[in-house]
């Protein structure tokens, strides 16, 4: 039994490139992304819509929808390179070593089958057990995710259950595998706040106790602060900053991360909410140099010309910024965001 420690990496993604070949041009949805996930930890993956968060997750399980294609990169799970796996081998990884929870729980369940049927089918496929064993296991899993009266609910169809209940079903299905890696793609976006807290709690408890790793995709920094140990910030297909949650929230170094944090509502400090000006750039025609420079209040000529490399920004904390690397001599003032807000 391996000890779950800070440095015990379960999943390592190296130089992942996933492009979409569209009529307008090539969309570099995931562009040279590298990160690691540790056992027993929940890592938040944050960024605006279109920053490449979900495609990163789909790339890990190799289910990128056409016209998307994984161009290059390595994905190491527990010492095995998933990119070298055949289709069949990959299928054996999905739903066993890696499970996934989706954003829209009701849409992620097949409308024509009962939820008990859907959970037990996945169990049966995996375990090769009999139908009735799988069914009773499914009911156990539903009980484990705190679905009241699971025997009765098992024979309900997705449309007969609430969104929160459907998400519990998805969680039950994902966790029934005892996966090494749980990928949760904005699992609480469509849920009420109270249900959201319950689902998050469920995920946290299960991940911690099983010693698995979790990649938690969200655009809600509040959830990240609450739930995660580490955070990866993506912008326009690139990782712009990553590190421990405590470090990043205390000392965000990339202007984009600073902007994201400044734009979250805080009740403890009396200051106006700021926004990051502009929008996520057009994915086909990314800005030159640092993709964030058109929206960055600190941008200089170099930022427009040259793409910054990943540099150390603190303990276990890296970022892509010319100012942090010292190539642009400039102070980043927190007040800059407040000026934008005013």
């Amino acid at each position, binding site marked *: 039994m391996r000890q779950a420690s800070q440095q015990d990496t379960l999943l390592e993604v190296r130089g992942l490139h996933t492009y979409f070949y569209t009529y307008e041009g090539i969309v570099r949805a995931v562009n040279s992304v590298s990160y690691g996930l540790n056992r027993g930890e929940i890592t938040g993956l944050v960024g605006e819509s279109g920053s490449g968060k979900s495609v990163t997750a789909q790339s890990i399980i190799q289910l990128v929808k056409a016209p998307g294609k994984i161009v290059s990169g390595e994905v190491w799970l527990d010492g095995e390179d998933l990119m070298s796996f055949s289709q069949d081998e990959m299928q054996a990884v999905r739903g066993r070593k890696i499970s996934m929870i989706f954003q829209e729980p009701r849409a992620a369940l097949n409308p024509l089958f009962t939820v008990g049927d859907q959970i037990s089918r996945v169990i049966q496929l995996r375990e090769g057990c009999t139908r009735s064993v799988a069914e009773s296991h499914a009911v156990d899993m539903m009980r484990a995710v705190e679905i009241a009266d699971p025997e009765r609910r098992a024979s309900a*169809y997705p449309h007969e259950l609430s969104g929160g209940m459907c998400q519990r079903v998805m969680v039950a299905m994902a966790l029934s595998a005892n996966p090494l890696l749980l990928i949760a793609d904005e699992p609480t976006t469509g849920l009420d706040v109270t249900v959201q807290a319950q689902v998050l709690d469920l995920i946290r408890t299960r991940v911690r106790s099983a010693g698995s790793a979790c990649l938690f995709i969200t655009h809600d920094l509040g959830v990240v602060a609450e739930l995660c140990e580490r955070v990866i910030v993506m912008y326009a297909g690139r990782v712009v900053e990553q590190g421990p949650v405590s470090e990043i929230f205390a000392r965000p170094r990339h202007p984009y991360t600073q902007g994201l944090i400044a734009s979250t509502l805080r009740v403890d400090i009396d200051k106006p909410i700021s926004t990051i000006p502009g929008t996520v750039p057009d994915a086909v025609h990314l800005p030159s140099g640092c993709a964030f420079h058109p929206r960055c209040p600190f941008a200089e000529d170099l930022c427009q010309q040259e793409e910054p490399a990943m540099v150390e920004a603190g303990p276990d904390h890296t970022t892509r910024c010319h100012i942090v690397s010292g190539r642009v001599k400039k102070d980043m003032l927190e007040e800059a965001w407040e000026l934008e807000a005013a």
Partner: protein
Amino acid sequence: MRLLQYVAKRLLHLIPVLLGVSIIIFTISHVLPGNPVYLFVGIDTTPEEIEAITKRLGLDKPLHEQYLIWLGNVLRGDLGDSWFTSESVAQDLMRRFPATFELTTVALLVAIALGVPLGVLSAVYRNSWIDNISRGVTLLGVSVPSFWLGLLLIYVLFFLLRIFPPPSGRIGLLISPPDRITGLYLVDSLMTGNWKAFSSSAQHLALPVMTQALVTLAPITRLMRSSMLEVLGSEYIQAARANGVPDRQIYFRDALRNALLAPLTFVALVYGNLLGGSVVIERIFAWPGIGRYALESIVVKDYNAVQGFVLLAAVLYVTVFLIVDILYFVIDPRITA
């Protein structure tokens, strides 16, 4: 129990529908210009004789009275007599309907049996050679008119190659039809063990079925393909994949059932339509079905026959939709009674 309740409810809904249909049918065929009485008279008929005929046919009464009389008769299963064939319209229709039913049903089954798998395959292997072939076949099917296709098939497969018999109806001219049980030659000849009649009627069915099936298959394939593509792109299919479900199961268990929902309505629409007789195909192949009967009745302004035919077509249409609604109810748990 839930199903019975649903069926009962749907059946009750049919009453106002059919009543409305009967009013429309009756009104339309009676406000059309032209006087059917003149079909019964010669050049030297006197006005008195014309009046007598008008009276005999009940055409002198007010329209609403004529309707009520007609409706009362219809409810007793009496569609009146055809003025042209001088036989009971109900009998005329019942004698011809099996021919239409047999042709239409076999053609539809062929179209479904080919169209559904073809549509599924072209969605699963999108833009592959099989998708391209299916695109070609369906393009042909939707753009070629059935009368031309029918004539072409007759020319090539009968006249040139002599593979199939000439378009002379349901069975060879020198072969006596099987004893009537259902009126469907294939079924009757099988039931009576009359192999000669079976083989002849199967051969006679081949060309009209091919014509009808190709025309019907095209839209079924296209609909099936787009419906399947939509389902395959849906979140729950992605989720099933992420849960390690093998492709084969994804296609045939998770996706197919969902993808069948949309084309089902279309199939009902087509079937309901075709059961009313496909005038063109029945004419080309000298098929003694109700489509041809309707055409002939319209030409001679045979009120009773036309009314009877349209009423039968409406009942068939409504019945097909009732069956499809019940199918939906069984397949899709989201539909409630």
